[in-house]
């Protein structure tokens, strides 16, 4: 399989690492809250309403766990690129965040329109996945600016 010869600037890579770590922490936090969270209504967030809603799981698995898997994957790819410089990891970082971003859009829609509660920790995850997506666009944009060799 062919991969685009993408090179990632080290500051961009560092930013992705930090955001993926932030997203990972947030997703782990939400997963724990899903399982052991106090059953209550809270002044500072609607997280219980969101996490206990029927939209919080997919195929019986809490969405927060998908978040953990996603951020781990991004984190691993960024680290692997840092270590090996291989094109496959640069390609993952340029394209996979689009899916994460689309999924985040759907989750924001669920909170605002369907459940009508906003969970700040879910929004934080959406924010970090959106920022990672923007960085992935920059990676792709920088690649297009460099003309292919052949």
């Amino acid at each position, binding site marked *: 399989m062919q991969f685009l010869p993408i090179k990632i600037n080290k500051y961009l890579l560092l930013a992705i690492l930090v955001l993926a770590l932030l997203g990972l922490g947030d997703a782990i*936090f939400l997963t724990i809250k899903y399982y*052991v969270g*106090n*059953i209550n*209504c*809270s*002044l500072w967030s609607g997280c219980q309403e969101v996490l206990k809603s029927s939209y919080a799981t997919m195929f019986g698995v809490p969405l927060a766990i998908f978040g953990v898997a996603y951020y781990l994957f991004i984190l691993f790819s960024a680290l692997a690129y840092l270590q090996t410089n291989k094109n496959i990891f640069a390609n993952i970082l340029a394209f996979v965040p689009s899916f994460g971003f689309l999924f985040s859009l759907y989750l924001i829609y669920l909170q605002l329109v369907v459940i009508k509660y906003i969970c700040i920790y879910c929004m934080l995850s959406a924010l970090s996945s959106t920022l990672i997506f923007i960085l992935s666009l920059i990676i792709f944009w920088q690649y297009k600016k460099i003309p292919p060799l052949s």
Partner: protein
Amino acid sequence: MQKNNGFIFWGISLVILVLFVWMIVNLATPSTKPQIINLDINADDIIKGNETAKYTLLEYSDFQCPACATYQPLVKKLNEEFPNDLKIVFRNFPLSEIHANANNAAYAAGAANSQGKFWEMADILFSRQADWSAEEKPQEKFISYAQELNLDLEKFKTDMDSTAVKDKVSKDRISAESNNLNSTPTFFVNGQKITNPSSYNEFKNAIFADQNK
């Protein structure tokens, strides 16, 4: 050499990751630090059960909070199972910032209280929470509930709007805030905060914990 570098790189990454995850897990797990409040029962507190019981369960609750509605049958069952050993105190903590009708529901329960039917109204408000939560004018629903309970409707309407009823609700809320509460329901057993139980048995054990020792 190249291979060694890889080991060191992934080793350090893994250690940092594990430390990070450990930190998050610590943050997310509820604190077990006991919170104790001064349990002065006021003359205007809403109480059921045995007033001189050894155990007092104090609940801060919001009629529009789904979690409070979930706990309502459990609290009711506790009262039925331990009529002599347990005193149950209800205080309002309407989270009006996130629940638009919470204050009005608390006023309706307060108005029912003036006619001695607080707990009956509370049962209806919780069990039919979905019916009135999104209403623009929930008072109409509350009046129909009052009618079901055979309350004096004129008095009920006046009381819902009275300063006495409203003052009691805001006094309750201020007492919740002065104890740094930020969620409902919050339960205290003899003044000590308990973690919200996940079953009736867990609830019972949390209340009568010192008896089992």
